[in-house]
């Protein structure tokens, strides 16, 4: 296949796929809309295969570490056992019930779920240390950031309004007025940015995602 085609085929497909989906929003033709609903499922099914690439490369990295007895190889072993153990439980032993199989659910609920919420909860510590570090009255702008953060933080604490009854409304004002304005301005900007980016990608001008020189 020619080089030109190799270069252009992906761009043509991108363009067609994008236009199909955009058209679905603006034209209410039942048959067409149904086709697009199926198209989205098509794309999701096709995209699913990429999971194997991720799994493959990760497995390769850790098998290599394991076989070379690199530092921390036992962690690689643990990773591979966890990966393939759960995978086999879900797919082979799962009797077609996948995640609903009791053995799967046991490991999922007692390992996966607590790990997930524990990592998430680390944010509590980090938000405290980040606040301590970042909120210094270095400049006028930083002071504004600091004050609005502190006011909202007290205002949103369950005890806040009990300390000072006007805090509730002041917090609401900050959230309703400057916060709304700032977020809305950014949102409008992002909408235009996405539109412009979309046009660039659909017309094949922005190809950074295909690699430099693609």
């Amino acid at each position, binding site marked *: 296949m020619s080089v030109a085609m190799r270069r252009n085929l992906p761009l043509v497909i991108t363009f067609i796929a994008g236009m199909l989906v955009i058209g679905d929003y603006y034209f209410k033709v039942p048959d067409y809309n149904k086709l697009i*609903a199926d198209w*989205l*499922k098509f794309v*999701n099914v096709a995209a699913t295969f990429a999971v194997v690439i991720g799994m493959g490369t990760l497995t390769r990295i850790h098998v290599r570490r394991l076989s070379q007895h690199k530092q921390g190889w036992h962690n690689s072993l643990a990773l591979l056992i966890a990966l393939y153990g759960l995978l086999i439980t879900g797919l082979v032993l799962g009797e077609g019930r996948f*995640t609903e199989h009791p053995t799967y659910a046991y490991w999922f609920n007692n390992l996966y*779920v607590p790990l*997930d*919420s524990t990592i*998430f909860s680390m944010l*509590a*510590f980090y*938000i*405290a*240390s980040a*606040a*301590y*570090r970042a*909120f*210094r*009255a*270095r400049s006028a702008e930083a002071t504004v950031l*600091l004050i609005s*953060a*502190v006011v909202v*933080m*007290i205002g*949103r*604490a*369950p*005890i*806040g*309004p*009990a300390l000072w009854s006007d805090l*509730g409304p002041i917090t*609401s004002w900050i*959230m*309703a007025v400057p*916060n*709304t304005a700032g*977020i*809305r301005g950014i949102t409008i900007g992002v909408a235009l940015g996405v539109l412009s980016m979309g046009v660039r990608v659909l017309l094949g001008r922005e190809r950074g995602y295909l690699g430099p020189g693609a």
Partner: protein
Amino acid sequence: MSFLGKLERVDPRAIYLLLFLVISIPLIRPIGLPISMSPMTISYYDVVEKIKPGDVVVISMDYGPASMPEQYPATKATVAHMAAKGAKIVGLGFWADGVPFMDRAFKEILGASKDHPKYGIDFVNLGWVPNGEVGMAALGKDVQATCTKDYYGTPIGALPMMKDIKSGKDFKLLITIASGTPGVPEWLRQWQAQFGLTTITALTAVSAPGVRVYFPAQIAGIIEGLAGAAEYEVLLARYGYKGTLAPPMDAQSLSHLLVIIFIVLGNVGFALKKYGKGK
């Protein structure tokens, strides 16, 4: 370096340890600090309060286990409130990991889920609806075709209350317990905009500011985070609902105060350093 000078650069580990203590102590020994009331929570309560017996309400689990501590109390309280008002509840979820919480809430509030004598008559759990926003659009157009079976595998035709529920038009109220995508904006685009349906939501506190811009025009009531849920529990006390959020609220208040104290200390240290040098 003097003690005050050190305030500028405290080892983060000291902050972590203090935070750990400040949160565990009230959980072991509750203090009973007061709880305030936000207007958004009141609106949320008022909307549910207006439900008449027999009104069909859809409640969607759009969160996962990670935000369960924050979202589940609101889920449970909302189910209790709807049950008290005699609503016909259609439970479902667009997050696969979130749907089990619907089942759990039914069990904890109504005593049982699929084995309940009124299951299929007063409430159903349609389970996970895949494909995010696309799925929402499909569900709005045709409920029966999108959810052919409920969470427990019963065909939708075998559930008496689903007989008259064909599309998004047949609902009186939409409640999404949301924490990300798909969540509020998707529901607004696919349901609220299409059917003019009254919509209320319980959110994680972090997604709340982004959603507030829709209040009150598109979203009629918001429960914001755990504090919102605690306020809602207070309002529900008149129905005899027993909440669990008072001790966590103590921990919450204290942790906020701790963070503020650290910010103040940091700034004192910073100011001393800055003006100390100036001399």
